[in-house]
């Protein structure tokens, strides 16, 4: 039996390097960090987000390359044929711990509520992994939280900021909003809008991308944080945002039977971690006290009064039946709300197609 012969493309023939003594092939253009991820190495980093251009800011991901005097940042250095890389040596681990200790000397908070954002535990986890106690390198703190920015969505708790600029980069590179930037320099750098104002006066669209990429919770989801004190564990349920036709994958965060937050899914095929202000923050209607709890029917005087489901459904059925009888199947039309669950949207189109025999059905999400 003939085996198919797989010939690698010529450009990949020599694409072999060595990582921690193990030979590994790579795709030309791949960075050392990307290779290390594939190899299951736990190379630490705080400024990395695989959707963004490599930045090389935190320097935690430095690795040793044989023949080079200094370690290189693995996130910004491309793998080359024959390269011999060491991802975890005592020297590297010592420098990484020092760097983390320096970071923690500025940002001493040891626990961050996970409701703050998807990436909010990154620093806390590295701190635990490297046994950083926060006792060394005491000194000034540079963070200045913007307590004056009272917008309902994004907490700007810059006391936790480590100046990795993931927020600035995601805003520019992913969203194209360029609403925030870096003010000043050195230890005094701050995240800023134009003229250092409030987010609502800037080009910010409150998409929440900055919140979800922030590795310390300095930028945090104010809506989700309302449930910080609730004792139940956080559960995540994968769904699709109903607001428009893009189909962004989201994770619905709940505590007990309460929806507490919505997060974009990084593995969502349509959105790859992106979401808009509505998808992320506009969910209060779900548990709003003004929601109808019982069907209402209109009396002869034109006012609504509570009714039983049987009565309400009978009334609706009668109305549909009369319209179809008097004016034919195209006299009915259904439009479902973007705020309704997908199951309801499905049910309404089934209803209108099956009972009326028409395709006059729509959803505000299509617009």
């Amino acid at each position, binding site marked *: 039996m003939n085996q198919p012969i797989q010939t690698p493309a010529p450009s990949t023939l020599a694409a072999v390097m060595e990582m921690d003594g193990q030979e590994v092939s790579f795709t030309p253009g791949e960075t050392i960090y990307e290779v290390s991820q594939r190899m299951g190495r736990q190379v630490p980093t705080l400024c990395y987000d695989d959707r963004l251009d490599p930045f090389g800011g*935190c320097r935690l991901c430095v690795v040793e390359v044989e023949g080079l005097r200094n370690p290189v*940042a693995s996130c910004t250095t491309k793998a080359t044929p024959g390269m011999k890389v060491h991802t975890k040596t005592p020297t590297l681990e010592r420098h990484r711990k020092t*760097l983390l200790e320096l970071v923690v000397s500025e940002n001493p908070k040891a626990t961050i509520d996970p409701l703050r954002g998807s990436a909010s535990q990154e620093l806390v986890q590295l701190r635990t992994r490297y046994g950083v106690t926060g006792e060394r390198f005491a000194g000034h703190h540079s963070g200045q939280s913007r307590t004056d920015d009272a917008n309902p969505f994004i907490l700007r708790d810059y006391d936790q900021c480590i100046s990795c600029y993931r927020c600035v980069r995601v805003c520019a590179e992913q969203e194209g909003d360029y609403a925030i930037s870096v003010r000043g320099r*050195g230890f005094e750098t701050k995240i800023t809008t*134009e003229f250092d104002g409030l987010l609502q006066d800037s080009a910010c669209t409150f998409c929440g991308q900055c919140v979800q990429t922030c590795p310390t919770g300095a930028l945090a989801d104010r809506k989700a944080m309302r449930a910080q004190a609730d004792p139940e564990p956080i559960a995540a349920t994968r769904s699709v945002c109903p607001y428009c036709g893009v189909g962004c994958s989201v994770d619905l965060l709940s505590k007990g039977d309460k929806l507490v937050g919505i997060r974009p899914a990084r593995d969502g095929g349509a959105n790859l971690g992106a979401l808009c202000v509505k998808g992320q923050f506009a969910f209060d209607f779900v548990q709003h006290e003004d929601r109808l709890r019982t069907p209402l029917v209109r009396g002869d005087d034109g006012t609504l009064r509570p009714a039983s489901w049987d009565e309400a459904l009978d009334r609706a059925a009668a109305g549909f039946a009369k319209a179809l009888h008097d004016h034919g199947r195209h006299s009915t039309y259904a439009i479902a709300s973007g705020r309704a669950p997908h199951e309801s949207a499905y049910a309404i189109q089934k209803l209108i197609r099956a009972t009326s025999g028409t395709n006059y059905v729509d959803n505000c999400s299509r617009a």
Partner: protein
Amino acid sequence: MPTPTDDELIQRWRSEPAPLLPLLHAFHDRDGHLTDDALRAVAKGLRMPLADLFGTVTFYHHFARTPPGQRAPRVCDGPVCRLRGCDALLRALPDATPMPCAGRCDAPIPVLRGAELLVGTTAGGAFGAQGDERGWPPPEAFLRLEPSPLPPPYPGAAGDGSGECVFAEIRTPGRATLAGYRATGGYEALTAARSPSEIIDVITQSGLAGRGGAGFPTGRKWQAVADAPGDPKTIVCNADEGEPGCFKDRALMDHDPHALIEGMAIAARATGATRGFIYLRYEYPDTMVILERAIAEAKTAGLLDGFALCVRRGAGAYVCGEETSLLNSLEGKHPFPRNRPPYPVTHGYEDKPTVVNNVETLCAVAPILRHGATWYRTLGLGDHAGTKVISLSGDVVRPGNYEVPIGLPLRTLLDEWAGGPGPGRSVQAVTMAGLSGGLLGAERLDVTLDEPCLRSHGSFLGAGGIMVFDDTRDMVAVAHEAMAFFAHESCGKCFPCRIGTQRLSERLSPGPGGSGPTELDPWTTEVVDIGDAMKATSACGLGTAAPLITDSLLKYFPEQVARHLAARKA
């Protein structure tokens, strides 16, 4: 002339190469500071995000955002000016604020006011007792306009005037004019019929290497740009001379501007570049005028055909002397250093092949082509090729720029050429590479001025600034000011430098700004750990060089460190 409107300024600059900095300067000069409306107009005119522009403007310490802004004096408080009484000047001048070393350590104290560079002095009884503000004369009594000094006469062996390359003709009267420059063969190297490969061969054989401090072979850099695909190619002259204690490029540009222009034009011919920039530090406004006049002269004489050369003025940021920060600054981006590779030779200005050379390197090009590679090589001592200009300042009798043969003993420069530390004094320490090479203690002054020797002692020659401190100086205070400078100038991109320079500065601080252990052992452990991480992991030379200050302080002055900690504990 009527005050130009926003639109007129934008129309003037929007189609020019690298328009952001000159446009911001135009508004800054017009209004004295950059108003919100000015930034809105610039963002709209250049189609830039306003938040980005705002952030980038705040990066540069000379761009003022509020009155009196540019019209208030800025007084140099660099290491040498501190020895010369800048504190008194700061108190005496209304609204004065300090600025980092402004590159005039041979004739201090530089004061920027509006578009003018003035020189302030506290000598000659202009002041009463220090701290006594009564009876001080008006600022004009101790501020004067004064051109930058020429290098001192060549102090090498008698009759050995040939030991110089870039300074060989600089003292000739009229040298800064086109006629004066041409009188001794200027522009002959450019107009001689040499092919690009012939030019590069001579430069390669001469051993000329980057005189800004990195020491990369110039011929190899030019060859790489000549070979790199992509057009247009660019020659950038790094004239950002921000290293404290360095003022050599200013002397070269002020007194021999055509040497630089000819060097750039030759580099352009050798590499096929059609555009050029001189990125000049903000603190040299006089130099800007001199360079623009010289470029106009050369252009009129038809010497720059096919090479569009212009000057761009920085706005106060040491890190813009790092070549990739400089390129970002030219392009109007936030001046963080870029990740390398790729290097500027393939991805430089606007991602096209670019030569970035220091002023001194480019000034050496024409003499080398005129006199030959062997001539230049043999100017150095022993195996070392060529010369290096040393900016010598501080506690020496004759501070100034000295062009030394590479390999010259430091002692010869200090004692024989510059007259030593003065009567009754001895040298306690010198800095190397401005501040970037750290300190050399008295017991290490037997070094020779070349990279192999200096690197073997944990230092380097770099851009060639040497500041001398005599036995009366507090070296912890010097180290603290140096580290505070690095912290002030750290760009904020990489963690080790951004936090490390700050923490080291706090550990060296004598006053309320200080923090950290007060016992020697834990203090040393912290300082060494921070320094080691900075040296190993920082993203650019600023962060890798800064800890040489603390390393050398601990190495040469442990008892002063102990005294510093004892005082802090008390």
